[in-house]
């Protein structure tokens, strides 16, 4: 009797486990892959223009798949909030808007300069949007970007954005700026948020380069693309980069080096009388890619000289990067979190007012490079007689 009752109850439970509530037919959903926000063209206070880039699954998969602009469509509306914009789009789109596949959230530079308060919060609290979604600032209008972007090599626009933003690992010309990090940094007292900058090139392909710096949630400037390596090195997000180093004796010829992070940077920050001081130790592995000069790099003395040049070059990049952050008065590298370690309580650190004293930063950078010249063919090309 007891077993029959148990069986009955278990069967009853099964009925409830797959209820009709919240059911979503895959065919009935419009998958948004990117969202963009601009200042509302009607100039209505409190409203923003939201553009949804929606995938067309039939064009992405199967034998008749396409690349470029045929794989998506866009919807644009003006609304005071994300959820209202969703409702408005649902009135014109035959399928229900679904945000669970959003790969990119774009803000126009113009809107970011006004401030993103209220927008980022609503995205963070929306469970459909992943915390690792990329947030970026668009130099032109986000609507134009999303309407005109043309992924040439990729049929899935979502994958296109993922791959494109991940390329910073190879290029060190941008940074992966996820929405959770962006939000937490905006709430912190020891760092400022950053967001990747993107634009369209002449072929309407997206290009992620450099990063925008914020104070709170307001855009205050951007970092030079060439200095991003410094940012990545200091924030332990550096993977790989290539450097061209002119050799002093043959300055017209470059030696190309690939730099890889050897270990996390060792950073100590102290604050004395309102003046922060940072000591930074960076350890990298350097690999000689090509030797454009006729110098034999297998000579110990030459290698040491080259190693010193590499160290100087990296030091210069980090130095320039820190100088730019000081000019912007924004600790985009998050050095404040290293200063925080020296305090016993939050209030004690808060009293130092890190964001205010950051422009007084003094620092000392030390770079240790470990140069590897193996696999390079030296003296393979004899100089042609003139």
């Amino acid at each position, binding site marked *: 009797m007891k077993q029959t009752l148990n069986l009955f*109850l278990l069967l009853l*439970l099964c009925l409830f486990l797959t209820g009709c509530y*919240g059911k979503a037919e895959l065919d009935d959903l419009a998958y948004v892959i990117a969202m963009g926000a601009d200042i509302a063209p009607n100039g209505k206070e409190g409203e923003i223009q939201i553009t949804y880039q929606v995938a067309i699954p039939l064009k992405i998969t199967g034998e008749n798949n396409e690349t470029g602009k045929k794989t998506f469509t866009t919807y644009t509306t003006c609304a005071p909030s994300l959820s209202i914009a969703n409702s408005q789009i649902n009135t014109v789109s035959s399928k229900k808007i679904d945000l669970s596949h959003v790969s990119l959230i774009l803000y126009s530079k113009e809107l970011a300069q006004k401030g993103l308060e209220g927008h980022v919060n609503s995205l963070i609290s929306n469970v459909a949007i992943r915390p690792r979604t990329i947030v970026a600032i668009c130099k032109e209008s986000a609507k134009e970007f999303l309407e005109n972007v043309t992924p040439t090599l990729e049929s899935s626009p979502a*994958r296109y954005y993922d791959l494109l933003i991940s390329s910073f690992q190879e290029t060190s010309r941008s940074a992966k700026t996820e929405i*959770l990090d962006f939000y937490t940094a905006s709430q912190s007292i020891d760092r400022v948020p950053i967001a990747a900058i993107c634009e369209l090139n002449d072929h309407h392909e997206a290009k992620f380069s450099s990063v925008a710096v914020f104070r709170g949630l307001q855009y205050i400037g951007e970092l030079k693309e060439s200095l991003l390596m410094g940012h990545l090195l200091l924030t332990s997000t550096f993977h790989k980069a290539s450097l061209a180093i002119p050799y002093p004796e043959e300055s017209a010829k470059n030696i190309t080096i690939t730099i890889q992070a050897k270990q996390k940077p060792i950073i100590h920050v102290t604050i004395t009388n309102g003046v922060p001081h940072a000591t930074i130790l960076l350890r990298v592995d350097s690999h000689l890619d090509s030797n454009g000069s006729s110098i034999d790099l297998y000579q110990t003395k030459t290698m040491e000289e080259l190693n010193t040049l590499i160290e100087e070059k990296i030091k210069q990049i980090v130095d320039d990067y820190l100088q730019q952050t000081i000019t912007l008065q924004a600790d985009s590298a998050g050095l404040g*979190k*290293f200063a*925080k370690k020296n305090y016993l309580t*939050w209030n004690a650190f808060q009293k130092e007012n890190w964001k205010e004293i950051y422009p007084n930063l003094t620092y000392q950078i030390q770079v240790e490079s470990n140069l590897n010249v193996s696999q390079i063919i030296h003296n393979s090309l004899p100089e042609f007689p003139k």
Partner: protein
Amino acid sequence: MKIETSEFICTIGCVGIIPLVLTIPTFNAQTYGTGAMAHTLYSFLMNAIILFLLFHLYFQFSNQDIIDISEYVGGSFLKILTTVLASVYLITSAVLVLVEFNENIRNILFQNAPSDYIYLIFLVGLVIGVFHGLKGVFRAATIFAPLILMSLIFMFLSLYQDIDITNFTPIFGNDMFLFWKDALKIEFFEGMLLILLLGNTLKNPKKAAIWSYLFIAFIILLITVLLYGIIPYPSITENYFPFFELSRLMSFGRFWQRVESLYTFIWLIAVYIYISIGTSYTVFLLSKVCHLNFGYRIAPLISLLVISLARFFVSYPDIIHTRKFLTNYITPYVALGYPLVILLLATIKKRSQIHETNS
């Protein structure tokens, strides 16, 4: 009915993740700020000391549970008082876990479903659990505990690279005095106190106490390091379901995505076990004290009581406040302080009796 030590440890493990999944990490972050991690370690030590003291006293009364010991100290009055306190506490905990989880699950999974619908799922599961009695719930937990442990370790391995240890500093957080003052975080280890209610039903209480403490401490350490290390203060205080946020951070490329579904299932199982344990214990205690021969017959009634009480909570802020009140003002006194006093009195009485006999 004898409960194996391994069954008990597994059950405590399942029960132990509930406070971590729900709002307690957020409360800790609100109170201690960046010091939440250091405070967790500090409270491990203090909890170990107090629990050692409690169980040291308890193990002097072998084969007796706290109800029998209460009767020994204060007769029928104390016996009934202890039973009522234990039952009310167990039911309240079960109700709060249920409502809190219900609200959270509706935010993430059943967004359009009415709360009654969710309660119905729990009601059916609860009745099945309670009908099987304590032994049945313990056995079910033995199946799920390894799964829960593996999934937590998997989560740690997936996310440990995102941990930033500077998030644990300043080490004393918001207030140094507050840090040292609130030494006990018994809500993390409240499951262990079930040993007091089991008496001779548990095969090896000493071993169960030591291993369940280590098991819970390990789970807490794993999760708190991830929580406080990845989501920095003050952002963590804004999220009332940070553990779910962590599972959403897990990413394994495009092929395997949305691992949080697995974790939602695990939390569901853990909640089932938690509320089933609470309700089964209440049935067990009432059957014992009221001398009911067929105690399981009141199981549906107690289950309905839990669900009905849960229906009283309609506002999420109310739930959060009640949970905070229970955690800060009830649990330390009812779940820890009261048994400690009873055990101290019992020890004094026992020693004086021995002294009298000897003299």
